[in-house]
């Protein structure tokens, strides 16, 4: 059969058009297919962030007759004042401590969850891990208050027993905030790590034991390094969630412990200083972004053999 191109006639209409290979769609079609994602991305990420960054660089109030001027003065104020630097450090410290505590407490649980084969036991563990997420955050924090407050369960019991003469400071400080933060965000750590561990072939540990490694050595040499991607992802999640959390530090800290999200809220909703609040929010964003950059750095460093 002669090829249509040689006869100069268009391709025979009766033949079904061959499927267009992915790479050869017309420009228009490709843009059209991109559109939904693009709209979402623009409307929910690019636009608000641009507005926030723009506001953080402005001064003035047109309504009050104060002309708008672009300026770096908000950032200069943040970096020039030790108070804001201390709040920044407090926020990061809270994130680091809560992340480390979640990791230490969560890893054994995640391991157990991944290695439990019996479906009934597995289901119970999973529900137990997820249950904190089924209760509203405020309710959970009131639960912690009734345990940790000066007249709460622990202090009241110890004082009744005569062990203490004055209550231990368990709340309205860093300790109380970390306890509640860990409780709220640990499921993210457990589920992320457990997902990675359950993908590690159990016979690897057996092979290590067979070659002379004790249980602990087999874990340290094989399972732990192979679960590193899960550890990193879990830490990234918990850290970014804790540094941006607002309700927990405010309720458990009782305004005694200042963090960036609380400060942002006060500036914007309290004293209507949108520009300065936006600058603080950009700072918070920078903290989160730098952790993500760090995450990819570490991942590519250790990733050699760990990632398939």
């Amino acid at each position: 059969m002669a090829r249509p191109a040689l006869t100069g006639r268009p391709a025979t209409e009766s033949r079904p058009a061959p499927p267009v290979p992915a790479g050869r769609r017309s420009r228009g079609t490709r843009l059209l297919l991109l559109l939904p994602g693009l709209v979402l991305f623009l409307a929910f990420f690019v636009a608000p962030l641009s507005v926030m960054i723009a506001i953080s660089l402005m001064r003035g109030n047109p309504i009050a007759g104060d002309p708008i001027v672009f300026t770096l003065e908000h950032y200069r104020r943040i970096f020039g004042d030790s108070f804001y630097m201390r709040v920044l450090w407090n926020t990061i410290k809270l994130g680091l401590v809560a992340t480390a505590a979640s990791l230490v407490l969560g890893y054994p649980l995640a391991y157990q969850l991944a290695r439990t084969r019996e479906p009934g036991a597995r289901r119970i563990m999973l529900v137990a891990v997820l249950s904190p997420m089924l209760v509203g955050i405020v309710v959970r924090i009131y639960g912690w208050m009734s345990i940790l407050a000066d007249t709460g369960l622990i202090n009241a019991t110890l004082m009744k027993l005569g062990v203490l003469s004055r209550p231990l400071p368990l709340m309205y400080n860093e300790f109380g905030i970390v306890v509640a933060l860990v409780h709220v965000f640990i499921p993210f750590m457990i589920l992320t790590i457990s997902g990675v561990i359950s993908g590690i072939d159990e016979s690897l540990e057996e092979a290590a034991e067979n070659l002379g490694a004790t249980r602990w050595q087999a874990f340290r040499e094989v399972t732990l390094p192979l679960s590193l991607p899960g550890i990193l992802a879990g830490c990234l999640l918990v850290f970014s969630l804790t540094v941006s959390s607002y309700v927990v530090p405010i309720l458990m800290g009782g305004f005694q412990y200042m963090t960036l999200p609380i400060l942002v809220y006060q500036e914007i909703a309290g004293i209507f200083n949108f520009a300065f609040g936006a600058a603080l929010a950009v700072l918070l964003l920078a903290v989160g972004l730098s952790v993500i950059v760090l995450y990819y750095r570490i991942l590519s460093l250790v990733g050699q053999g760990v990632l398939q």
Partner: protein
Amino acid sequence: MARVELREVTKRFDQMVAVDAVSQVIQDGEFFSLLGPSGCGKTTTLRMVAGFIEPTAGSILFDGRDVTNVPAHRRETGMVFQHYALFPHRTVLENVAFGLRMRKVPQDEIRRRVRDALALVELSGMEQRYPRQLSGGQQQRVALARVLVIEPKVLLLDEPLGALDKKLREQMQFELRRLQQKVGITTIYVTHDQEEALTLCDRIAVMKDGRIIQVGTPAEIYRQPASRFVADFIGSSNFLAGRVVGASGGEVEVETPTGWRLAASEAGRQRVQAGAPVFVAVRPERIRLSTEQPDLANRVHARLQGMKFIGDAILYQLTLEAGEQLTVKVPADRAAPQLEPGTTVWLGWRCEDSLLLTE
């Protein structure tokens, strides 16, 4: 190297008996195979020898020393897993060095022994590769080098060729045999592939439902299976049911329900009573197919159902009057002239080719 002894080893999981009072001695330097269908308890037995699971009852001895309660990491066995279980985050070098490092062997000795082990499996120069950069056959050889380097008392192989394709599997069979003979290590080889067991091993233990039902050299197991199950599992067999009608001079006469008289050699089997129900087993390649009555001790009339060309041979499918199915294997170069399905033909075989089975 060690002599391995299993004494009444039993493993129960809840109510299920996985391994049922298995007793077996594996000689020093022997290549021993546990052969059976999946779920017969062969892997569970191997894992008990390795120390990954504890027997419910019974004991395991290496060179007469009871190791039943010795944990896996101090048992000095070398196990090659079905999917090799190479450490994906470690290079070939680190994988092979792992066991020596756990034993706190000095660095320069580790280097020397790893080099020798990799040379043994012909993988020199691959030290810095990661497992995922190797082919299946190469991964297999790294797994072997990794256990051989620690000079274990027993080499345990759990379906080690199962994940390879057919060509490579055959090649690795020879490789395994060569290595085992060179190192002279006691080896327990678990497989469900009868051909592998027949080619590789000094002795085979056929397992079924948690028990060893027959032990012998490949030739013994193939020529004198003790039961219908073994005869069917090792190679393939035709079975004809019948009753013993007489015995003389080491020959037993069996009558089939439709009246054919078959002769079978006793071949040292237990005596059978006249009238006892038995099976006569005969291998497909032992049966002669002809259009004229053959001059052989056993002959039956059968109807051709169909045939199948399998390359080096032709398989003929036939039925007897009572509906018994028979398969006859004829080498392709000696194949009978084209026969139409439905033709009636004669089948014949020698007395010593029919095997008497009581179960």
